[in-house]
């Protein structure tokens, strides 16, 4: 005869109530732990996305500053396309803008790019300098860059990607008079856009001849 039969009051197992209580407690604890983990996970994930966007914004600022901090002038700005031409340095003919001295900054197709004139490498320095014509201050610099692009004599590189849109604000009505500029970018951060604003100062501002 087994012990359960001998001791009917001490049979093994849980009563239904005990089982239900145990299940409830287990479920509550699981829920608590699970929600905490989910919260941690989502916070970590969100934090990571925001941090990535911020770091990307910072990297973009560093790369854009490489151009804007040293720029002598903002030569032209197209309000519709937000294309902006800057005069990066003045080497060949003093106080005048030469083709190779300009840079075209564009915000389009999710990218911030910089484009510059680069003559074929097989040209001699004399040929390159001869082709590096002076552009009067009232030139259409964007068109000049487009003409060089059509000849295949430009190169470009990306300064920043995952950019939804951007817009410039200048400190003067005429771009060539502006000593300061602001660029507002909207960066794509996995569905939640992050805005960044960069303020630039042209401390070597020069008005071209």
């Amino acid at each position, binding site marked *: 005869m087994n012990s359960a039969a001998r001791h009917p009051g001490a049979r093994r197992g849980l009563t239904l109530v005990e089982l239900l209580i145990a299940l409830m407690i287990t479920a509550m604890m699981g829920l608590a732990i699970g929600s905490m983990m989910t919260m941690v996970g989502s916070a970590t994930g969100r934090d990571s996305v925001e941090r990535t966007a911020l770091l990307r914004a910072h990297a973009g600022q560093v790369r854009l*500053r490489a151009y804007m901090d040293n720029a002598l002038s903002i030569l032209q700005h197209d309000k519709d396309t937000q294309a902006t031409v800057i005069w990066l340095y003045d080497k060949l003919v003093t106080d005048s803008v030469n083709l190779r001295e300009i840079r075209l900054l564009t915000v389009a197709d999710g990218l911030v790019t910089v484009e510059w004139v680069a003559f074929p490498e097989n040209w001699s320095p004399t040929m390159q300098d001869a082709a590096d014509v002076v552009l009067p201050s009232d030139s259409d610099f964007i068109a000049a860059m487009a003409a060089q692009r059509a000849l295949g004599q430009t190169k470009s590189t990306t300064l920043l990607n995952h950019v939804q849109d951007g817009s410039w604000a200048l400190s003067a009505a005429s771009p060539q008079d502006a000593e300061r500029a602001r660029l507002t970018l909207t960066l794509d951060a996995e569905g939640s856009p992050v805005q960044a604003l960069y303020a630039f100062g042209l401390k070597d501002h020069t008005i071209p001849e």
Partner: protein
Amino acid sequence: MHPSSPRSTAARTRRGFTLLEALFGCVILSVTMLALGVAVSAGQRASIDSQKAVLGAMAVDDMLAELATVPYASLAGYHGFSQAVGAIESIDGDPYPAPFWCVGRRVAAVEQEIDVPSLGVKVRGMAVIATAFDEVRDVAVAEVFIPEPAE
């Protein structure tokens, strides 16, 4: 031979935890959860502080870049310039977007003379110090020395 009593057998084989064991278990679990929680929040705080540091660095960089274009004679007027946390704007009045909610900025501009003994020259100029801060502390400080314009 007498068999053990049913009561003492039942007492020895009773399933479950004693109160003490349950309490010990709860304490261990609590401590573990507490440690986890503390670690997570510390990590979160470090992350937020890092983001503030980056934002602060960007904000002071912008401030100094803009002040570099201000005429030298006007720099002293920026001494004490301050923008509250979450309300920073460019010099020309453009407000900074949402990510910059957590920092404010202030500027100190003081006249300074720098001696360069190896060259035997002394140059007067303005030390411009830009500071980004949150509600509690300064998160970023950078400065620039702008020499007085030559004649």
